[in-house]
């Protein structure tokens, strides 16, 4: 009886692990999409209101993602203090500090850190051109991620279930 309960528990745990990995992969994809959306939103908000970046980030941009909201507010506050020579540096430094919280791959993180260049240009046109460049790169990364995600989900799911089964067999 005990062996049966133990086996069920191990199988449930491996199923749970597979589910959590799957959710994590989905979340990662969602966050990339959210970031892309956010860059567009910031740009259009700047373009519409013609307010400085700091004000747009502090008062006009809302995201559902708490981590991102925190990062944007921090950038806005640091810009207000005027302690950096250029705005791009502030954007990059803050995103670098919060790299772990965002859970992005290094290539994606670097791209987001550089994307700040699209908001501190001399004109709206310049910002738009730079932004479209980063969005293209991000789209490419998202496409790669989408393709890899399905394969990864299958592989992780199989590994989790199989290792659960192996463990059950070993323990029996």
């Amino acid at each position, binding site marked *: 009886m005990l062996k049966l309960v133990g086996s069920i528990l191990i199988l449930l745990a491996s199923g749970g692990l597979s589910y959590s990995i799957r959710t994590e992969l989905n979340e990662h994809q969602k966050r990339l999409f959210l970031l892309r959306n956010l860059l567009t939103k910031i740009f259009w908000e*700047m373009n519409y209101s013609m307010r400085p*970046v700091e*004000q747009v980030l502090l008062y006009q941009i809302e995201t559902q993602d708490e981590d991102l909201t925190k990062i944007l507010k921090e950038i806005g506050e640091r*810009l207000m203090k*005027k302690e950096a*020579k250029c705005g791009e540096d502030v954007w990059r430094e803050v995103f670098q500090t919060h790299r772990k919280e965002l859970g992005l791959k290094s290539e994606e993180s670097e791209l987001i850190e550089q994307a700040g260049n699209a908001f501190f240009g001399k*004109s*709206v046109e310049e910002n738009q051109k730079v932004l479209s460049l980063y969005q293209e790169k991000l789209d490419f990364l998202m496409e790669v991620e989408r393709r890899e995600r399905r394969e990864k989900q299958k592989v992780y799911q199989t590994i989790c279930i199989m290792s659960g089964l192996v463990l059950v067999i070993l323990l029996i």
Partner: protein
Amino acid sequence: MRLELLFPIHLRETMKNLEKLQDLEEIRVRIGQPLFFYTGQKELVLLLKEKQDKKGQFRNSRELGTNDNVYHVTEADLLEMQNYISNYSLYAWQEELRNGFLTIQGGHRIGLAGGTTNQNGRISGISYLTFFNIRVAHERVGCAGKILPYIWNHNTLIVSPPGAGKTTLLRDCIRSLSYEGMKIGLVDERSEIAACYHGIPQNDVGPRTDVLDGCNKSEGIVMLLRTMSPAVIAVDELGIEDDFKAVEQAAYCGCKIIGTVHAGSMKEIQEKPVLKKWCEKELFERFVFIKKGESGMRECNVYNQRWELLC
């Protein structure tokens, strides 16, 4: 905004006591030149860090025989300042760059010059910002107290030569009338009176004042008249025929007007071609002439429409 935040980081420590400089009116920043600070009658320069002593970081420029001890502005300084002045957002100031000035938080105004870019024969912007004139905001609360009883409920024109304090007096009239309970509509074409920063007045213009910022005077007067039902419309630097036509329209709608105009004397007012016609029509019932004495003290004389001195 603290003024030192407009300057490069390496200069901020020495600029910390900037607000303590008495009567600071202007700061001039020019590429390759010393940093000039104008306080009342004095022209001060910033010394190099190693030359600063107990006397402080500033010296009267006339006391210095040589420029060797003086800090000179570099291109990197200007680029850095450009970021701070624009809040790292030059894109948001395109219209202001075209006009050659911008108003920052605190109501300070920054005049800009450098290499201009042209489109269709008109200035479309400034590509190299290499000259800044930072005009420190000053509010003289209560300076209109003496003339208010004379101009109350009358169409008034404030007259003086440039730099004598027309705008300051007009601002105080607006504030005082607004606190007294009158609804004021202010057309602030060059953001000099309310000094709006993103739509928020940085100067106190009273609780009952509506501001139309950066708007052409004649259009603004008509717009305010239609939409905000003001008891008084205030406008700075009336100059062209259209402005006076709009003023006349407002006056015939039961609205009172307070405006300013450039003139060196009261006689000049009567002889100005544009103004002559409106004076003959007795559009304005009061004229306030500001005289600036050699010590910098201002004196105001109030005249009625028949040019009789009231005070």
